[in-house]
Every structure is written in structure tokens, then in C-alpha cells.
């Protein structure tokens, strides 16, 4: 019997990610383009993943889109699903023992409760950038550092500077004040990581934090935020090198289920 290939695409607010799965178990190719919903990113991500797999659209048994921009792919994808369900699916695939998923994306934060690989409850942040990837982008700009360097720089800190977790605009003013006072940038960054952790911890406790805890989304690549969250939650947090692709992976897994049902 020939193999079944499915494609999952996660169109986020700041990046577009694709994964091609073989028979719902083997990752054949992946792609990531650093622009998301409303840009050329989704199409470029699909082109890139097909090229990496040396395959065509027609060879995909099923394409499932997720993420903030999922509905912009009505014609291209066979189905759209919420990124919450896909993140739950992807995390359960990577970490079968997972019960709590913390996903910090470009413009929102989600905490998912998982039972037997299925999402049974969730919480999302309010309409506010505090605690999201956008919050870190804003702070990196003010500090004149690259967002990908925040984790490394924060690790060099010797103390934590208190930064507001209520509002991105207020926090930005606080960071500027700290810079004006000559506070070490690494200490400020450490404070920013704890600010994100405070915000996310409040959200996580609304549904309860049950180990194993897994963190997904682009911010999970920042060890400073992960460590600050570990401290706040008092539990170990697992991450994966595929963290940014987790939503796309979940989409590809759901696509595989759908392709099998269609047979």
C-alpha cells in the first residue's frame, strides 16, 4: 500500500509554518517563513515545504490549515481548525504524557489542558499584548537587541529588575526609565522574562497546571522565559526543537486522520 502524505500549515500572526507528514508519523519536510497572516508568507511556506520534500500539492492526501490566518486559506486547504486543537495534538504527539500545554505565540497566549491526548479545557489571554511574543518584540526594540538574543543576554543577569506585567505600553515606559537610570540591560531582560512568566502563570492557574507541562510556540525558544516560568509554576517544563512547528504538526496529524476517514 502506498504511503499517505498530509500537509499541515500554521499561519500565525508573525510567521507561517508547514509540515509534511508521512502516514501520520514521520516528518518528511518542514518550512518556516518569518511573516504570517495577510502576507505572502503562507504561500511561500507551502512552496518551500513542497520543494524540500520534492513533492507536489497533488501528492498531498489532505491539507489542513490552522493559526490566526487559517481562514485565508479556504481555497488551498481542505479544512481549517483552531490552533488550540492543533497545538494540543502536536504536543501530545511529541510528549505523550503531556497534561498542560503553554503556547506563547506572536499575539496571544494559550494554556491547554490535555487528557489522553485530547484538549478538554483551555484559557486564552485577554485582548492585550502583555505576555505575548509581541511584548518581547517591543522590548527587544527598545533595548536595541535582537529578539533571538534575549534568552542568552538574560542568562547573564545577576539580579531581576521588576517590570510591569499589566500592560505593554506601561512596561515599555518602565524599561526606558531603567535604561535612563543606567540599569544593566541583562538585568532588565531578566525582569522582562519574569514579567512574561507572571502574566502567563496567572492565566495557567485559571485552569490548573498538571504535569507534564509542555511549552510550544516561538517564545519557547527563549530559555529565559522558559526558566522564569519553571520558577513561577514550580514545575519542570518540556520544550522541543520543533516548538515553532507544533501547530503545523498538529494540523498535519489531524489532516492524516481526515484523510484516513475519507478513504
Amino acid at each position: 500500500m502506498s504511503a499517505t502524505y498530509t500537509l499541515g500549515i500554521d499561519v500565525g500572526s508573525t510567521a507561517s509554518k508547514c509540515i509534511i507528514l508521512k502516514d501520520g508519523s514521520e516528518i518528511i519536510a518542514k518550512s518556516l517563513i518569518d511573516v504570517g497572516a495577510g502576507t505572502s508568507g503562507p504561500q511561500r511556506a507551502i512552496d518551500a515545504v513542497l520543494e524540500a520534500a520534492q513533492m507536489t500539492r497533488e501528492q498531498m492526501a489532505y491539507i489542513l490549515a490552522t493559526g490566526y490566518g487559517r481562514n485565508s486559506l479556504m481555497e488551498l486547504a481542505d479544512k481549517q481548525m483552531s490552533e488550540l486543537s492543533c497545538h494540543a495534538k502536536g504536543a501530545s504527539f511529541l510528549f505523550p504524557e503531556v497534561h498542560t500545554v503553554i503556547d506563547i505565540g506572536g499575539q496571544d497566549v494559550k494554556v491547554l489542558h490535555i487528557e489522553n491526548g485530547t484538549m478538554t479545557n483551555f484559557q486564552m489571554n485577554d485582548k492585550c499584548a502583555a505576555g505575548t511574543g509581541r511584548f518581547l518584540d517591543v522590548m527587544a526594540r527598545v533595548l536595541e537587541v535582537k529578539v533571538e538574543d534575549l534568552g542568552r543576554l538574560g542568562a547573564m543577569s545577576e539580579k531581576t529588575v521588576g517590570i510591569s506585567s499589566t500592560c505593554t505600553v506601561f512596561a515599555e515606559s518602565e524599561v526606558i526609565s531603567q535604561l535612563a537610570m543606567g540599569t544593566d540591560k541583562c538585568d532588565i531582560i531578566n525582569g522582562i522574562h519574569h514579567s512574561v512568566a507572571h502574566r502567563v502563570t496567572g492565566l495557567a492557574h485559571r485552569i490548573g497546571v498538571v504535569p507534564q507541562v509542555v511549552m510550544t510556540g516561538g517564545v519557547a525558544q527563549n530559555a529565559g522565559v522558559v526558566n522564569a516560568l519553571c520558577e513561577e509554576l514550580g514545575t519542570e517544563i518540556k520544550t522541543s526543537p520543533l516548538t515553532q512547528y507544533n501547530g503545523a504538526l498538529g494540523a498535519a496529524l489531524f489532516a492524516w486522520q481526515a484523510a484516513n476517514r475519507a478513504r
Partner: protein
Amino acid sequence: MSMNALLDEFKNIAESPKKQLDGYKKQGKKAIGVLPYYAPEELVYAAGMVPFGMWGSNKKTISRAKEYCATFYCTIAQLALEMLLDGTMDDLDGIITPTICDTLRPMSQNFRVSMGEKMPVIFLAHPQNRFDSFGLQFCVDQYAHVKKELEKITGKEITNDDIQNAIKVYNESRAARRRFVTLASEHCDVITPTKRSAVLKASWFMLKDEYTVKLNELNEELAKLPVCDWKGTKVVTSGIICDNPSLLAAFEENHIAIAADDVAHESRAFRVDVPEDSDGLKALAQQFANIDYEVLLYDPESSKNRRGEFVANLVKESGAQGLVLFMQQFCDPEEMEYPYLKKALDAAHIPHIKLGIDQQMRDFGQARTAIQAFADVLEMSK
């Protein structure tokens, strides 16, 4: 009239209250703006005028009202004032400002100052202690004040017979709306969340006798249909108001029907009839006292979380699988009550989501994601 024609008519009225107001004014009728919550509309009707609900707007942006309002006033109150300042509601002959919540109480004075000589602003303070005889008497006195002010506008006396007739008209309308809510759940393939909202919303902009005739006609048409075998999920909605078609469309996209509601703008406004009493004002005051399980009203036994249990039971009894709470931004009563509601829902193992909304929202991306994810959760728990 066919069912589709009736639904279209309700939709048009719900979408264009200004047009509806213009129509009544052309007929030579006077109209009174009625702000939330629990104003005795019957008195306006008894005075021969049109009560016109003022629950904000999904189309306007707050601009002029900012001159009078603190930023933490809810958008419902601010947008009601905006429409009185930007000319939209200039044809009203007066407004009634109930003062049940901490926003509407000071806001009643913002209305008074901002309207100046433009139109009369009738202040209404409901009693917190509404059950005891002194509370009832206070309510009767307040309603007598509203009656007197309405008489000044209409130029004629409102008799007890006028009030008794209005009570009859309104009780019939409440019964028709309650029946519609039941039928809408039984026929959720026809009455989508958007259509359901439009039918109920139209009631705020129509004379109740006219509205009830049309609603009874719709109810009869619905009753002829076989009860639908709904394959999607059903929820109960809760909150102050959830009338934005763009947001409700997300329910339809995800095959979510509304089994019942606990919404102030919808069922909470017509759950309780006015009892029989030879004194019309006393009857209206007694109805206010009889309202129960209400976030906005004082409950001497609030520590028992009766309201939370009531809402949880509503979910179970209506056949819904979960609850969607529309949390109005800056609505203190709903925000403060939420932990108790959550406690009761969790105890009854009823899944729910809380969506933060306000009437100036135009993008519902995050809410759509949450609704779609909630549909997945409910589907998997079936």
C-alpha cells in the same frame, strides 16, 4: 407572511433602529429612550408613546461621549450617549435612565448634563432591598415619579386602566418571547444564532403589541416544523448582550446552536411576568421584586450561589453541552460574579468559555479561535 419574510423583517428592524424610530415619528407618535435595566416600559406604552430600547450600538464609535464619560464606563452606556449627542436619537422625546449598576448611576447625571434642554431625562432609582414592604413602596414611589414625568411629556394622564392594559400587552409579549426561545432551540437548523438574536433584539424597537403579533405568527410557523435532529453542539449564552452578527456568525461556522440564554438583553428581560394587582404601579413594583437569579440585583442569600446553580441547571435542562459567557469590558457586576458562576459550572462539570467583548470591537479573530476550539472540546466530549 412567510417565515422567511418575518425573519427578514425582524432582521431589518434589529439592524436599523433609527429607521424604525423615524417611522414611528412619521405616524405622529412620541418615543422615549429606555436605557438598561428593568425600566417599567409599560408606563411608556400606557402613556401612548413608543418605548425605544437603548443598548448601545455595534456600528458607532465613541467620540463625543468621551467628553462626559470616564474611560472605564461600559461601551453600552457610552454608545447610548453617543447616539444622543451625534443626532442619531434626536427624535426621542425623552429618556429614562435606570441606575442599577455603578456605571449607570453616575452616568444618569452625565445624560442629564449633556442633554440640557434637548430632552427630558427621567431618573429612576430601583430599590436595592426590593422584597420588603418599604422596598416595594420605594419602587412604587419611583415608578410614580416616572409616570408623572411621562405625563408631562405626553400631556395626558396615565390612568390605572392604561397601565393594566399595558401590563397585559407586555405579559403576552414576554410569553411569546419565552415560547420563541424554546422553539428556536427545537428548530436551531432554521433559527440560527444570528436570526435568534435579531428576532429578540427587534422587540426593543417595536411597540410590543405589533411585535407580539408578528412573533406569534413566527412561532406558529416554527411549531409546524418537525423538531430538528441537530448534529452540532448546543450552548447556553450568558452575559449582558451578545447581538453582534459578526460574532454570532462564528457560532454558525462551527455548528453551535443556542439552546437557551442567560443574557440581560434577551431572556433576563422577559423571564418574569407582572403579577395581577388592582394597582398597576404596585403590580409593576412587585414584578421587579420577583426577579431572581440576576447578577445586577441584590440577593440576600448570595453566599449560597443560587444564581450559579440556576445557570448550571439552565444548561443541563436546555440540553446544552456548555456555556459561552460574553463578558462586557468594564462590567463590574458580571466580572465580580464570574468566579461564582465558574464555581457552579465546574461543580456541575459544565465546560464554558469567557469571551471578553465590547461594542467597539470590529475584529473577532481571537473570539472566533476560542469559539472554534470550544466547539472542538464540546464535540470531543459528546
